[in-house]
């Protein structure tokens, strides 16, 4: 678990370094979600929540600010709930879970942003963010499941 938390923190740091921005507020690569999805499948939802919360708070203090912590918590909570629901259906693999996580993370963030500025106009960017969520979720989920397969081999 500590290893996954460290991984999530490193991924948060990498993400804060990459100027990934297509002119849309709230868009992120969601790299740390790789570690969260892995935690979810390796351990369970409780462990994944612990890693997620620690990840956000620690990376918030290290690379961001209080404001950023609250903002990313909102996205993380919604996307985590969505991922749990998808996982519990047992019809999807890690990639499907990760896609849903990415999509709902972005939806939640833009809704929070709209709420903070009290302007609904920015929901205009919702489709772009959903598309981005599918793409980043797919990539992250693919990498996460590959890594998982390797780890399982090593542990065995």
């Amino acid at each position, binding site marked *: 678990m500590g290893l996954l938390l460290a991984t999530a923190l490193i991924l948060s740091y990498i993400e804060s370094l990459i100027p990934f921005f297509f002119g849309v*507020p709230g868009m992120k690569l969601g790299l740390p979600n790789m570690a969260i999805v892995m935690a979810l499948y390796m351990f369970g939802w409780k462990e994944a929540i612990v890693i997620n919360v620690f990840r956000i708070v620690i990376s918030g203090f290290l690379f961001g600010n209080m404001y950023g912590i609250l903002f990313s918590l909102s996205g993380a909570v919604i996307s985590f709930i969505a991922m749990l629901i998808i996982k519990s259906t047992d019809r999807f693999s890690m990639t499907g879970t990760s*896609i*849903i996580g990415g999509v709902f993370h972005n939806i939640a963030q833009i809704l929070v942003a709209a709420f903070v*500025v009290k*302007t609904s106009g920015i929901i*205009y960017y919702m489709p772009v963010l*959903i*598309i981005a969520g599918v793409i980043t979720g*797919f990539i992250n*989920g693919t990498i996460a499941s590959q890594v998982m397969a390797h780890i399982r081999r090593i542990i065995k």
Partner: protein
Amino acid sequence: MKYKKNDLILGALILVAALIIWGIMMMLSSKGSEVVVYEDGKELYRYSLSDNIRQEIISSAGVNVLIIENGECYLEDADCPDKLCVKQGKIGKIGESIVCLPHKVVITIEGEGGSEYDATAQ
């Protein structure tokens, strides 16, 4: 570990749905005529998009420098920590916005008949 078929179906469905909505929005969007600045949901300033101006938007949390030129507008500078609003680039079509979350400032392009969206959420 291979993908399950459901993963690809799920991803493809969401992608197609979002692309269709986006495509329709792109087709319907036209050049705007007014630049409206909101702070915390309240209208602060309103400028014509055909003017060429450089204006400091002074809100309670800080300053953003708004530039309007050649029918487009963008933020040249801001004193917020992340400067994401500056990186959002130029906008000019109805409905497009630049958002500065730390300052709670939104700059939106509107058309002749006002915004096509309900401007304030509350």
